[in-house]
């Protein structure tokens, strides 16, 4: 596989997605609003719990909760995708057909679109994160090695979540009523990727489930790493697990994709 043609393709894709997303600034802001508010709500809930119980719960101090949810807000936005919600109309309205005719896998334009969105929203998200960290007195003192390891783990988490969610989105090829499938997945992500509470606050069976399944490795792991909750050994094992899941995910994606395209029969256009 040669990479050089992909560089040109991605450069062109970024130019297109940047131009189109700059046209929909308000829309991007509105989606960002939800991405900020949800972790903020849980930040406040857990800070309140911690304060009611003498300033610490389950090994997390009030400031540690603030740090956890501020970092979670960033990691969640940086790994989030919305392909599952777009695929339904793509298939139902037949707008997917022209993408299939191109001599390149349609996943690449989605990756470019997603990365552009993250790049643009970060200009608002990062200042908001800093502001919230100050307002809620977040105590964030990770060791340097953890910060260094955070970068590859975030990158792996992004790729893993993208591959998994793109695969789940392919369910549309079999049924256009994917609302229930999407929501089942959304609940699993909500609970098992640590968005509701740090995973260590859940009962052991839930923690085991989150560790066996890919969810923990999509969000909670980079967050724990950046907040200094992990040992170097845990960090290494985690990154390897991420890589293994990513490899499995890519294989699964390819298998399901081949099935799906064979089933595809376009309507209209």
């Amino acid at each position: 596989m040669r990479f050089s043609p992909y560089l040109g393709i991605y450069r062109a894709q970024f130019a297109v997605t940047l131009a189109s997303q700059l046209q929909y600034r308000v829309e991007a802001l509105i989606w960002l609003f939800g991405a900020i508010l949800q972790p903020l709500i849980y930040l406040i809930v857990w800070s309140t719990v911690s304060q009611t119980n003498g300033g610490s719960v389950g090994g997390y101090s009030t400031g540690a909760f603030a740090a956890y949810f501020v970092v979670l807000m960033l990691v969640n936005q940086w790994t989030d995708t919305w392909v599952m919600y777009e695929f339904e109309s793509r298939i139902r309205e037949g707008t997917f057909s022209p993408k299939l005719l191109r001599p390149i896998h349609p996943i690449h334009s989605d990756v470019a679109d997603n990365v552009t969105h993250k790049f643009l929203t970060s200009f608002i998200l990062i200042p908001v994160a800093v502001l919230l960290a100050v307002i809620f007195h977040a105590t964030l003192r990770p060791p340097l090695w953890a910060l260094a390891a955070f970068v590859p783990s975030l990158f792996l988490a992004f790729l893993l979540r993208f591959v998994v969610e793109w695969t789940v989105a392919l369910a549309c090829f079999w049924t256009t009523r994917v609302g229930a499938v999407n929501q089942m997945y959304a609940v699993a992500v909500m609970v098992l990727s640590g968005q509701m509470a740090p995973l260590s606050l859940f009962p052991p069976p839930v923690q085991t489930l989150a560790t066996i399944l890919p969810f923990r490795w999509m969000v909670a792991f980079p967050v724990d790493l950046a907040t200094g909750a992990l040992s170097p050994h845990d960090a290494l094992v985690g990154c390897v697990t991420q890589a293994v899941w990513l490899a499995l995910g890519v294989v699964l994606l390819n298998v399901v994709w081949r099935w799906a395209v064979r089933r595809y029969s376009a309507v209209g256009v």
Partner: protein
Amino acid sequence: MSNLRLLWVFFRLGALNELAYRANFFVQFIQSSLGLATALIGLAVVFAHTATLGGWRSTELLALVGIYFVVGGSLNVVIKPSMQQLMEDVRLGTLDFTLTKPADAQLLVSVKQVELWELVDVVLGIGVLAVALVQLGAGIGIAEAIGFVLALACGAAIVYSFLLILTTLSFWVVRVTNILVVFQAMYEAGRWPVGIYPTWLRLSLTFIVPVAFAITVPAEALVGRLDLTTLLGAVGLALALLAVSRWFWTIGIRRYSGASA
């Protein structure tokens, strides 16, 4: 009286429409159950680590979650789809057909679209509320019950007026659909008692997006921690907002130029 009959006719029509798509009921049932499950898991994990949250015990918060689903579901059954339809009608000019009908236009646009299966949320919410009430036991007297019904009615009126005002903006700015997304995000904050939020967020949730009046205040009435001032305030705000939204609607409708295809 004739208005009530009109409401009933619209509701029946919408229901008949939806009954043609029965499979959607199962999809909605799964989605609502998942939504409820998420809320309950959230409560469970929080109360595994604390006895009270902002002074609320777990059964009291369970009642709050029930109200969250009842109110949210009711909005989704008729108000929100109708408002969405109104924005669309303004954009396409099809509001003409509604305006020519010999009935009050505000009433017509408010009940035009019915999404029957969203009632599942309401039913689940009532179930949760019932369980919470049984657990709360003898704490609910006649005064609490009256306060609850009154607070709930006021909350509904306040949120309805608020959504109508937002939607009426579409007479000036055509693309306001996304405002409803912001409302939804803020509404989810109402799943927890607004008392736990810092002042700036609490004030936003009370007066900018009046989620507090729709969920926290009725729940407070039910568990007997509502003071008379807040209740009277809710009544006053409900009446004021109903009047303001009515006034704003008549101004907006005057601006509507129609499509005259």
